[in-house]
């Protein structure tokens, strides 16, 4: 992945809490075998309503989603992150996130920043008034900045380093191959294992 240090963009304010991954992308759009091409499924049902924020022509180029609490709750489908990314969303700001969604987001370079309720409410209100209102999510400094204000956010140190340096997650883990082998040698023999079905067809 390309190194990622910071993102600045205008805002898609989504004044809803508990936005679940079935809303972000309904299951019938999750049946592709690729990691791309999910933008059509993004909020597919809500986009049927003309006044839904993702239909606002003034926000067609907006890249920072600001949402209510518990954003991305629900299923583990990474398609939710792929759909947001394919639409062009680069960062999501909310008072809290579904755990699996947040982890999936960071794995794909979608910045998910958790801010206090009051800050999110303020950003939401201002962005609703002004489609040109810009927010910066600064990964290097772990801070979200807006005109006249800022707030730090927390992020898993490993995820941050992977994104800042553009590293391959699996390659970094495999640097600890020796530790993994040593662990495996100490595992109890009774733990279940499956007969490999074998063979390349």
């Amino acid at each position, binding site marked *: 992945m390309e190194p990622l240090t910071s993102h600045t963009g205008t805002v898609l304010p989504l004044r809803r809490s*508990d936005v679940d991954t*079935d809303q972000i992308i309904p299951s019938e759009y999750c049946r592709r075998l690729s990691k791309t091409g999910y933008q059509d499924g993004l909020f597919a049902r809500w986009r049927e309503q003309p006044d839904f924020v993702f239909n606002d022509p003034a926000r067609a180029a907006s890249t920072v989603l600001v949402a209510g609490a518990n954003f991305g709750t629900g299923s*583990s489908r990474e398609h939710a992150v792929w759909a947001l990314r394919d639409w062009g969303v680069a960062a999501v700001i909310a008072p809290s996130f579904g755990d699996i969604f947040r982890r999936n987001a960071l794995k794909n370079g979608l910045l998910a920043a958790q801010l206090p309720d009051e800050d999110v409410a303020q950003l939401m209100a201002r962005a609703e008034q002004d489609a040109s209102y810009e927010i910066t999510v600064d990964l290097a400094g772990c801070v979200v900045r807006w005109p006249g204000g800022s707030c730090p956010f927390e992020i898993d*140190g490993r995820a941050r380093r992977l994104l800042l340096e553009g590293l391959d997650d699996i390659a970094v883990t495999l640097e600890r191959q020796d530790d993994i082998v040593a662990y495996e040698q100490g595992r109890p023999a009774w733990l*279940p294992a499956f007969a490999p079905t074998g063979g390349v067809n």
Partner: protein
Amino acid sequence: MTTPRTTPRTLVEKIWDGHRVGAATDGPDLLYIDLHLVHEATSAQAFDGLRLAGRPVRRPDLTLAVEDHNVPTDSLVITDPISVEQVTTVRRNCAEHGIELFRHGDGRQGIVHVVGPELGAVQPGMTVVCGDSHTSTHGAFGALAFGIGTSDVEHVLATQTLALQRPRTMAVEFTGVPAPGVTAKDLMLALTAHIGANGAHGHVLEYRGEAVRGLSMEGRMTMCNLSIEAGARAGLIAPDDTTTAYLADRPRRPTGEAWQRALAHWETLHTDPGAVFDHTVTIDVADLTPMVTWGTNPGQAVPLGESVPDPEAYPDPAERAAARRALDYMGLAPGTPMRDIGIDTVFLGSCTNGRVEDLRAAAQVLRGRKVSPDVRMLVVPGSMQVREQAEQEGLHEVFLAAGAEWRFSGCSMCLGMNSDRLPGRERCASTSNRNYEGRQGRTARTHLVSPAVAASTAVAGRLAAPSDLDRG
């Protein structure tokens, strides 16, 4: 100061410490994964990633795959082209990497969270992951089990590990004894209504107390399954005699000498007296009655005997807005008694309530009764083995005689990825786990219920408990 060795630890901490690869650092721990369950709907991109990087699957022998999310349940032949593509892909990937796969039509096929336990492949103290959020189900065995996304599926395939922050812990104490007819489903809907759909955010829950000890393994699986609906990362229950009795005749259990060694280890798997949880929630279950959801997240639940709440009564503006939107979607007016809500479809199945005990509870209600002519009822066993067991007990005859459909196994109407979807604004009483907007069909409306309430509802044509049927 006490040394780490003598510090009392929670069950989660014991499992965590026992699976940490290498020395502890200030960053996340690298956690070894004992069992990786795979299904067709979230794995294709992970296998593609391995192929692109030229990486092998590190431990195919610790990986087990099933076909469940997309498969039809009305036929053993897959005709939908996208489903065919999905299963063809998982078959090719499993063959290429030497991973055992239970295909659609195989007698061992079923929903991934039903199949793993019934094989005995999930045992106390293990770490279990799967690209599905309801992996928390396996916590019923005293395993640390949680759902992961596709990037993490690829990471586990390649390394058999995950880099994770140690989670916070929450004790959920269910005190008292539930009344007859009050199930694990009702306990969990009550918990979720109490703490909210995100109330356990970032925590692993340990369920404790008399009401938990009294549950069968099936009930414990229902309980742990629904942990994610309270926002938790996972939920688990310390193993006891119920756990070992369940495992004792399963095909993948340890045998002979190894069984004895395993038993000795399992006895250490409990929270030590004096161990500290980050949070504790206590729910007295003695006064609980069957629960049902009225809204569009599992926290929006009330006892069946109550009415649809009034959004204006919520002090919190976000909750008020969410309740208004939910009622609008659900087509319900505040103050409507839950028992007056008419139902079009009843879905009995899913990894939450698709086990044989669940089918028995529903069949007990349906025996000698008929599904209302206005209602369509689908019975979808959680696995082909559940189906076989149910047929041995004659449960299928009860369902068929009542006018319900008797299906093959799969996720089916839980998520509507196959053709089992609700048309229009149909209203469904469902034993599954999510009442989200559009989950069971574009504009469909879902009420989450226990199996006994589902069966009673099918007979009454409106939300009902077994006791309502006797009143005639």
